C-alpha cells in the first residue's frame, strides 16, 4: 500500500493545528499503528512550519515591478524579432556583393589589362613591362571597390524597401 486512506484526515488535522490533541481518538490510534501515516505525521508539520518561514523570509517583488519588467523584456524581444529580417537582408546583400565581386573579378581583370595596355601606349608613366601583379594591384585599388560600391547602391534601396514595407 502506497497511500493510506487516513492520510488526508491526518493532513487536515496537522494543517488546522488540531494534531495531535484536537484530533479524534480513532485517527490518533490509527496513526500509532500505521507506518505510512507515521511518515506523513513526521514530515507534515515540519513542512507547514517551513512553508510559513519561507513565505515570510523574503519579500517578493511587487506585481507592478514584475509586470513592468516583463513588458520591457517583451518589447525588447519583439524589437529583436522584428529587426531580424533587416539583419538577414543586410547580410544577404553583403554576401551578394562579395559573390558578385568574386564572379566579376576575371572580367574586371581583363578590362583593366586592356585599359592599361591602351593607356600604356600613350602614357610614359606606365612601366614598360606590365606585370600581372601590377595589374592585379591596380584592379584591387580601383575596379573592385567601385564594383562593390555600385552593387551596394543597387541593393541598399531594396533592403530599405523591404524594411519599410508594411
Amino acid at each position: 500500500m502506497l497511500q493510506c486512506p487516513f492520510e488526508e484526515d491526518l493532513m487536515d488535522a496537522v494543517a488546522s493545528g488540531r494534531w495531535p490533541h484536537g484530533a479524534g481518538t480513532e485517527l490518533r490510534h490509527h496513526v500509532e499503528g500505521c507506518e505510512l501515516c507515521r511518515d506523513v505525521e513526521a514530515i507534515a508539520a515540519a513542512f507547514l512550519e517551513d512553508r510559513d518561514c519561507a513565505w515570510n523570509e523574503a519579500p517578493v517583488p511587487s506585481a507592478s515591478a514584475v509586470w513592468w519588467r516583463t513588458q520591457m523584456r517583451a518589447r525588447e524581444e519583439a524589437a529583436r524579432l522584428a529587426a531580424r529580417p533587416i539583419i538577414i537582408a543586410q547580410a544577404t546583400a553583403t554576401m551578394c556583393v562579395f559573390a558578385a565581386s568574386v564572379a566579376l573579378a576575371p572580367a574586371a581583370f581583363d578590362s583593366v589589362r586592356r585599359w592599361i595596355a591602351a593607356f600604356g601606349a600613350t602614357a610614359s608613366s606606365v612601366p614598360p613591362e606590365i606585370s600581372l601583379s601590377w595589374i592585379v594591384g591596380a584592379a584591387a585599388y580601383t575596379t573592385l571597390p567601385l564594383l562593390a560600391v555600385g552593387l551596394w547602391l543597387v541593393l541598399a534601396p531594396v533592403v530599405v524597401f523591404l524594411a519599410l514595407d508594411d
Partner: protein
Amino acid sequence: MRDLTLSDIERLRTGSSADAVPLEMDEEAFRGFYDRTARALRAYLARVTGDGALADDLLQESYYRLLRARGGYENEAHRRNALFHIATNLIHDSRRRARHMTPSGADPLTLPSMRNDAVATERAIELRHAMGRLKPRERELLWLAYAQGSSHREIAASLGLRAGSIKLLLFRARRRLAALLNGSGLRTDERSER
C-alpha cells in the same frame, strides 16, 4: 504576427508605444494572479533550489515565460499548474548549468540555504537539512504535496509527470525524508508532545 516597420521597432525599443506587447493576460488579471501565487512560488523555488537569490531570479523568469507563452489556460488552477511547471523546468535548467559551472563537482542545490535560520523553528531547520540531502525531484514532490497541499493531479501537472506515477514517487520520497528526519534525532513521539 503583423509585419513591423522600422518606426514600430524603434517604438518597441524605446517603450514609448501606447500599445503594450500582447501577453497572456492583462495587467489587472496578472496582479490578482501574482498576488495569489507569488509567495507560494517563491517558497517553492527557494526550498527546492536552496538558494534565495536564484529563487528570486527564477520567480521573475517564471512569470515572464508564463505571460509570453499565451497558453490559453482554462482556469486559474490550470494556469497555476503551468506556472509551477515552468518554474520546475527552470530549476532543472539552472541545476544543469550549475553542474557544468561547478569545477569541484559539488552540487550547490544540495547545500541548504541557512541564511534565515534565526526565524526558522528547530523542526523547520532540520527539515531543510534533510531536504538538502534529497534529490531535486523528491524535494519538488514533497514540497508540493505537504507544504502546498497539492493533489496528485496538480503535482503531476506541475512537474510534467504522469498522475499515476505520483503516488509511488511520493511514497518513496516521503520514506526517505522520514528516515532522514528520524535519523536526525527528531522522533515522532517527541514531535507529538510539542
